[in-house]
């Protein structure tokens, strides 16, 4: 009954609550309290990662508070290997995000309040062991996003074209409120599906409790598994950017302010994938087994489709947003193989991609604050004006194309190895092609922005990142390299949980393929 987890989960929320008391004029105090909340969570998540007993595995550091015993709803927080690594990721990202948003000028107190409530929800989901609380925190993590994008976002122009041209008249496609609304509605449409799924399982397991462990013990009937799994897969998948329901992600990220897109692409999309694996796959082995090929096929589309779309984008933020869709495809591909290597790879990719995208969006934010444009064609020669930003941008690009020595490589390598071993060569090849296409568009963008003769006169005055702006890139860059050179720091955490969760699936289906 250790209090470590509640502290990590609710520290940001409490900080947000304290912010209410601080008058708007006290800019420094607002930032200090927010940073304090983020730092407590970061240190807490590091402590959780260190204290987690790798050999024992399973759920540790439990904390249980009965909320509605009659229905079997408990605020039951406990951490397993996966949860610990993703908790650490969230800690790092929120720390960087709060730092990156020191430059928010307009209504900054409200900004920090919504940001901290949002991250509190995310922390909670990774350690919630009660399915309903999992869903509750999942919904909280989604909603402040609407206000954050709607108020502090930026609008983009999207030309009228294509078969549905007349729609442009009514909806201002590309605007920030449009993006915020689309994001919220699509994600909540997903959570509607999840709600139906949760009830279905709850009732079929005898309506005694929402505890994940208990629900996992129950053997669900075949038809239930076949119907409820896609509900979870597409419900959580919408947040993970699964193919048909990914269109909120480019607009959402492109319109969101820096810190929000860092948090969203960096962590929230992992929520979706974590949900699919932790809830969808562990609770419904037969369903998983039956649907796995389709999940894999869609993931393949995600990877290649996302990569190619990213290549065609003119706006830097859209490129990074589509690359997130592509990388999340790799995660889902790893999950679909139901193989221990690929699962380790998938969860590691969640971590690696989180850190990479966090860094990329932080840098994009820095570039945008200085040059006030995100169209890469207009940029050029920024390398001579901002060498440090160029250095970190190149590092992030190299990690996203899977250079050994960076976290990206370890993740993608394990997923492709697993996919090949389990007998899905096409998935592995598609993934590798996706990685190659990523290499093409990522370096093409970095060359267009940073290389070439000096910046045009418009951007002469640009100055490099300095002071507090540097802390976030350094922390994230260091994470990419450290976990790329020595991945066992995280893999030792992930591996026991992977084999535990996989054992549930393979035992039920009688030993895999």
């Amino acid at each position, binding site marked *: 009954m250790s209090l470590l987890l509640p502290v990590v989960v609710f520290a940001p929320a409490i900080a947000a609550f304290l912010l209410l008391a601080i008058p708007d004029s006290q800019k420094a105090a607002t930032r200090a309290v927010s940073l304090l909340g983020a730092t407590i969570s970061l240190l807490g998540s590091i402590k959780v990662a260190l204290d987690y007993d790798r050999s024992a595995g399973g759920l540790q550091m439990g904390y249980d508070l009965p909320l509605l015993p009659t229905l079997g709803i408990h605020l039951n927080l406990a951490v397993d290997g996966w949860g610990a690594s993703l908790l650490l990721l969230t800690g790092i990202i929120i720390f960087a995000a709060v730092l990156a948003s020191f430059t928010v000028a307009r209504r900054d107190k409200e900004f920090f309040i919504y940001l901290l409530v949002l991250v509190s929800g995310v922390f909670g989901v990774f350690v919630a062991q009660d399915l309903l609380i999992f869903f509750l925190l999942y919904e909280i993590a989604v909603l402040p996003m609407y206000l954050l994008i709607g108020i502090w976002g930026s609008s983009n122009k*999207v030309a009228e*074209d*294509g*078969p*549905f041209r*007349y*729609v442009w008249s*009514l*909806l201002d*496609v590309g605007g920030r409120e449009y993006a915020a609304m*689309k994001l919220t*509605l699509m994600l909540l449409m997903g959570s509607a599906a999840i709600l139906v799924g949760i009830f279905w399982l709850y009732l079929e397991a005898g309506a005694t409790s929402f505890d994940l462990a208990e629900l996992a013990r129950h053997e669900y009937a075949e038809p239930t598994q076949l119907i409820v799994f896609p509900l979870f897969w597409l419900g959580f998948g919408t947040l993970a950017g699964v193919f048909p329901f990914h*269109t909120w992600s480019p*607009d959402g990220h492109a319109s969101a302010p820096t810190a929000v897109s860092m948090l969203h692409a960096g962590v929230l999309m992992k929520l979706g994938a974590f949900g699919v694996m932790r809830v969808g796959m562990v609770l419904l082995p037969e369903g998983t087994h039956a649907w796995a090929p389709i999940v894999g096929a869609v993931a393949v589309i995600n990877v290649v*489709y996302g990569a*190619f*779309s*990213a*290549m*065609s*984008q003119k706006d830097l933020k859209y490129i990074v947003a589509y690359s997130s869709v592509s990388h999340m495809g790799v995660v889902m591909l790893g999950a679909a193989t139901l193989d*221990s*290597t690929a699962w*380790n790879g998938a969860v590691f990719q969640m971590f690696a991609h989180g850190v990479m995208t966090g860094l990329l969006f932080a840098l994009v934010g820095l570039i945008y604050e200085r040059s006030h444009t995100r169209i890469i064609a207009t940029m050029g020669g920024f390398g*001579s004006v901002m*060498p*440090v930003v160029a250095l970190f941008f190149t590092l992030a690009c190299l990690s996203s194309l899977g*250079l*050994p*020595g960076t976290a990206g*490589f*370890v993740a993608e*390598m*394990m997923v*492709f*190895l697993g996919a*090949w*071993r389990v007998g899905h060569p096409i998935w*592995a*090849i598609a993934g*590798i*092609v996706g990685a*190659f*296409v990523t*290499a*093409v*568009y990522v*370096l*093409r963008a970095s*060359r267009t922005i940073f*290389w*070439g*003769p*000096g910046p045009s006169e418009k951007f002469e005055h640009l100055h490099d990142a300095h002071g507090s702006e540097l802390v976030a890139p350094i922390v994230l860059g260091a994470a990419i390299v450290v976990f790329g050179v020595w*991945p*066992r720091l995280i893999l*030792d955490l992930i*591996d*026991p949980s992977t*084999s535990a969760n996989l054992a549930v699936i393979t035992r039920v289906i009688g030993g895999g393929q």
Partner: protein
Amino acid sequence: MRSPLSEAPLAALVAVLAPALAALLLAVLPMVRRRGAPAAWICLASSVASLVSAGLLLAGQLGEAEPMAWTTSWLTLDGQGLGELGVNVDGISASMLVVVTIVALCVQVFSVSYMHDEPPDAYGRYFTYHALFLFSMNLLVLAPDLLQLFAGWELVGVTSYLLIGFYYRKPSAGRAALKAFWITKLADMGFILALAVLFTSTSAFRFDAELSTPLANVVAGLLFFAVVGKSAQFPLHIWLPDAMEGPTPVSALLHAATMVAAGVFLVVRADPIFAHAPDTREVMLVVGSLTALFAAGLATVQTDIKKVLAYSTCSQLGYMVAALGAGSTLGGYFHLTTHAFFKALLFLSAGSVIHAVHSNELADMGGLRKRMPLTATAFIVGSLALAGIPGTAGFFSKDLVLAALEGRMGWLPYVALMTTAFLTAFYMGRVVLVAFFGEARGKADHAHESGALMLGPLAVLAVLSLGVGYFGAHFAEVTATGEYHLHFGMTPAIASGLALGGFALAYAVFGGGRDASGVGVLALLDGAARSALVDRTYEALYRHGMLNAAAAIGWFDRYVMDGLVNLSGWLTLVAARSLRRLQSGFAPDYVFAVVLGALALAAWGYLS
């Protein structure tokens, strides 16, 4: 074979970690890097350290120390380790390490003065990349298994991208860097697939994995695809000439001696796998000899001295691949070693010439023999070694390669390599005559000899280019890649004869003060060759194929997939709008709805 750190080959660890530390130090401390000179000293210190440790290791291996390895598992899977990370010292890796560190040190010393007029922060950045390169190359050479080799392989690819694009302000340098990285990355897909196949069958990545012949062929074939990319073999060779955009010392180190040779080193290292893959070896033989001939042909028509040397490297790599294809690992590996030295020598002397003349074009050079005697002698020694004139290192290694081909029934490769030998001598003769003899043209008249820092390395490399050939027996014994015997049969004679013939023809065409106009005619051939060749297809593939496909998918996603989402939103709004009209505001309508509803309910009640 995990052995505690104490007995581990400490020297090997130093060889890898010294440059790594240097690179890390320079990357993390921008103030040190930006001051230029200190960065150079740190990088040089790390190179010297790795050279000394390489020397110790080679001495150890020569002195009957058996191969040692110190590794830990890099990833975890189902509780145990997966993939080895560490150092593995045996004959092959020790010898390659020595070659790499020697050439690296020479190039770095050379660069100290060659890059002297660069701004301090660029100077610092240059040496940081050099330290990073040396670390990656050593990581690759000392790799205990294919996974770490692949890591070194890709890191080397990235440092080559960074170094080619060193003058990032030049758009052509940017394009060249990207082209190099993309093509090698394209080829590396083969490597990853090979690792996947290996992992699936043996769940490890060992060099000496026991594989059935068909499986070995698949793995070897995939690995060879990666080698074709990295060592610039025929279809994927186009990035090497463009890689000359980088500073000349870089071309000397990466694109002549070490990096491009990594492909050949991989084949040597993974010999047990390739041994079971006869079909792949056949392909290697064909591709190798084809590349050798094709590249030599192109080299004869280049006007830029570095492009000549680049195509010459392509051609020599073709030699090594052909040798390995013919089964003579010793031939390939020994040629790699000798080639590293004399090609580095050629590039550095060319660098010294360029430094003096400030232009790469042969047209701007002439009669440099008088103004730059030492550089000229170095270049001539290099050319002789390259052509394989007896007595030079080139002769011994080329002889081994040709001997391996002699016995085979397919005579085509043998003839191709012989013609290549002739062409090599011809184009090297042309360069020597045009650049160093005849009268001075253009800026050549006020060129002056380079400083000591540049000539020192040239001297060292010249000595090695001449002397290394005689240590063939020791080389074979320490690397255990086949037994070595010097023989004076038909092949060496024909080869030397062709070499001399090549020089004679060159003298006939270009010697004795004849103007280099002849070069013009051949230039036409080059233009035609280039345009028809692979370059155009790649450009078209990239610009029209990939970019258009991306644009189409991007458009589809924005206007169709997203369009559907917008459509659903729009439909809801339209439906909602139509409902508004129901609310007419006229009271009797409301009452009408109530009555209608009640009566409908009553009817339903009655009927059901």
